[in-house]
């Protein structure tokens, strides 16, 4: 029993990503065609050159035909995957493993979500027939329970913590303001963030990710073939995944100040990639900032800060664009919204741009490190799935 990983066996040779926005004028098919077309061009291939497809969407469609029809893929193996909010990352994992196994030469992961056709704010799940006893809270409410628990555990004044959380929102909006593909491209002041109306617990509107439509895609090939497609491939160093058992919801030992699934996935990814000091070895990290307390806790779960210290590091600017480890340099879920099937690949797209020096100049990170991390989670505190990838520009 072991997690061996596929370090340096698979390379990403092309990526694409739509703007994330309330695309009233685009349907799911349009988003898919836009992201796929950009990705094919990026890798210099046609749809026929791709041997197999994995399509991630949480709720916008079922089966691989949701992808095959708009792209008119003929007789290709096309599979739809879903794994809560890590759906996009799961599509990449499947495509990468397919290539690593030798089953295919070229595989593509596409993630897309059309959220804004529901007529409701926020994300809404399919109702699965049930006994009527499951909780019906919003994700905001579930994650809102983290902040008071964290403050109590580490003896932090709740108002001080609120400032720290606001700073996470402020930082991500700052970064998003430098990214034309973001849903929100204007900086937001600390005053505005702190004055926003509450939606759940003490979380205000600006503590929550936006809600947007979007699509993103990646093409992967065997590492030795990478330079046939691009001069600057990204090599997959680690892909890890952890699904919790849901016992956090009913285990009196769980205290809502950490996400064990995320720590598990991170530890596995670091072992696969040979990373021992992520804070200093990584050039950047894209993390799942669905709500501001989530990003705070993730800084500890991902090993960027010691337990109980992330709030100090956030306040000190450690994770700012010019900090020790820029976190969510593209603006994160906060600025991009969260089209569930696309988000994991959108995170990877920022790693693709940054490590290749193709980010907009205002947000381009100048780092000697050649590694980037993406972290994607789904579910709630106590009942979560978590994905971590590490990609790099060099073999070895």
């Amino acid at each position, binding site marked *: 029993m072991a997690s061996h990983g596929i370090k340096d066996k698979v390379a990403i040779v092309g990526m694409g990503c739509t703007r994330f926005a309330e695309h009233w004028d685009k349907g799911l098919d349009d988003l898919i065609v836009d992201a796929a077309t950009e990705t094919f061009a990026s890798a210099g291939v046609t749809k026929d050159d791709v041997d197999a497809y994995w399509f991630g969407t949480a709720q916008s469609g079922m089966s691989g035909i949701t992808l095959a029809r708009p792209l008119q893929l003929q007789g290709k193996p096309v599979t739809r995957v879903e794994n809560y909010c890590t759906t996009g990352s799961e599509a990449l994992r499947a495509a990468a493993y397919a290539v690593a196994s030798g089953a295919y030469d070229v595989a593509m992961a596409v993630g897309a979500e059309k959220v804004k056709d*529901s007529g*409701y*704010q*926020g994300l*809404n799940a399919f*109702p699965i*027939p*049930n*006994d*009527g*006893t499951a*909780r*019906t*809270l*919003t994700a*905001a*409410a*579930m994650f*809102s*329970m983290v902040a*008071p*628990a964290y403050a*109590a555990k580490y003896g932090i004044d709740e108002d001080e913590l609120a400032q720290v959380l606001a700073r996470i929102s402020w930082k991500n909006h700052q970064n998003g303001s430098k990214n034309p593909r973001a849903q929100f491209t204007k900086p937001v002041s600390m005053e505005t963030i702190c004055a926003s109306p*509450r*939606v*759940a*617990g003490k979380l205000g509107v600006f503590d929550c990710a936006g809600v947007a439509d979007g699509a993103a895609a990646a093409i992967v090939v065997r590492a030795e073939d990478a330079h046939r497609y691009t001069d600057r491939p990204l090599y997959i160093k680690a892909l890890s995944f952890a699904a919790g*058992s849901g*016992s956090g*919801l*009913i*285990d*009196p030992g*769980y205290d*809502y100040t950490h996400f064990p699934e995320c720590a598990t996935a991170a530890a596995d990814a670091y072992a696969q990639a040979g990373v021992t000091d992520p804070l200093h070895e990584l050039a950047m990290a894209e993390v799942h900032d669905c709500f501001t307390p989530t990003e705070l806790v993730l800084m500890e779960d991902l090993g960027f800060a010691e337990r109980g210290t992330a709030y100090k590091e956030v306040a000190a600017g450690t994770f700012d664009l010019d900090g020790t480890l820029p976190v969510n340099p593209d603006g994160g879920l906060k600025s991009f919204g969260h089209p569930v099937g696309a988000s994991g690949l959108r995170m990877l797209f920022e790693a693709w741009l940054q490590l290749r020096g193709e980010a907009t100049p205002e947000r381009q990170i100048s780092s000697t490190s050649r590694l980037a991390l993406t972290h994607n989670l789904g579910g709630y505190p*106590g009942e979560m799935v978590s994905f971590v990838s590490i990609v790099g520009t060099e073999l070895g």
Partner: protein
Amino acid sequence: MRGIVSIAGYVPRHRLERAEVAAFLGSGGGSGTRAVAAHDEDTTTMGVESARLALRSVPGVRPSTLWFATATPAYLDKTNAATVHAALGLPATTGAYDFGGALRSATGALAAALDGGGTVAVVAADVRDGLPSSADEAGGGDGAATVVVGDGSDGAPVVAALIGRASVTDEFVDRWRTPGDRRSRTWEERFGETRYVPLGAEAFTTALGSAGLEAGDVTRVAVTGMHARAARALGRRLGVGEAAMADDLARTVGQAGTAHPLLVLAAQVEEAQPGDVIAVVHLADGADAFVFRVTDARTGWRPDRPVADQVAAGAPLPYGRFLAWRGMLTPEPPRRPEPARVSASAAWRSEAWKFRFVGSEDRASGAIHLPPARVSMEGGAVDDMVPVERSDTLATVATYTVDRLAYSPSPPIVFAVLDFDGGGRFPVELTDVDADAVRIGDRVEMTFRRLFTADGIHDYFWKATPVRARAAG
């Protein structure tokens, strides 16, 4: 000797100040308060709460039959008593039947139980209102009561023995509601008064006579019925004297329809001493009179939560919210999808969990699973669990939140992670709670509620509520 083995009332927490009605509408209302069922309560859930209280006082008693009476049932065709039966965890072999429709249903069920055999739980509940500013809206009340009737042979003695009973019936139109109508209608009240007063007097006199008593022997008597004027007039005609007239709860709770005579009877038994003679006369399409003598066993019987304590523990409810809860006024709902209807088969499979809040305990590790599980979260044992009931267990708030976005029939949702005494954690909605007053460490208890209704199917499950006042001592 046959009579009352245990009895309890349930008065919901919320109170409408009647003066608020006139302040809002310019007319209607009156003085005093009325009890209001919360948005997540109906006659079935209130019936369950009263039955839990009544059975808690006689732990060894298990009724052989359950009768549920209401004029405002949550379901027609489907038996509401079956839901009460499930929430009480009664054996499958216990019959459960509804006495539905009329305001005389509960006294009829009580009479049948007293005339019959075995141990019978008579559960009654009602939700009363009318159009805004109407006399029914102000004078009505919501509540429930359960009388456990037996002969003392089933593990608990009779605390109030039936010594006299009479029923008289008359056909006349005083109050009526055709199926589907939202409100009741009434004839000119003078006509009903002229019918009810002699009917009630006849029933009372006959019942006393069958007990070999006279009016002066009665320690305490109450007259109930939706015809308030007739009830008051009859009280003056009974010949028992002012001191013997029991509080009919009209000023605090309001007339809780079908359930009201049993609710008032519960309060009387709770306040009585051994040897007291207590009586109730209920006016509804005739009159039913019951006369009991309180036995020495009363001293050993302890009500878990007396009606008087519940009446005193009310919390004010704004009139606007009352109207919204009653569907008389429609506030903007949260812009979230409404929940889908509950799956009948899924609900049936999880009956013990859904209706009784029964989880499971891993015999090897002791880990408690809410809901019950087959595979343990500790140690991984498979199918080695025993049921563990938590509906009567107090819990402590470990953390909480207020959800202002999620769908609720009455937003916001107050939600807490609970750690139960003796083990077990469950995240669950709080109810009858001030959203701003919840704190980590608060003590709560479980209460049976209706979460929502979709496609006409009610979703019953448990919520938690701050621990309510209990009888001292």
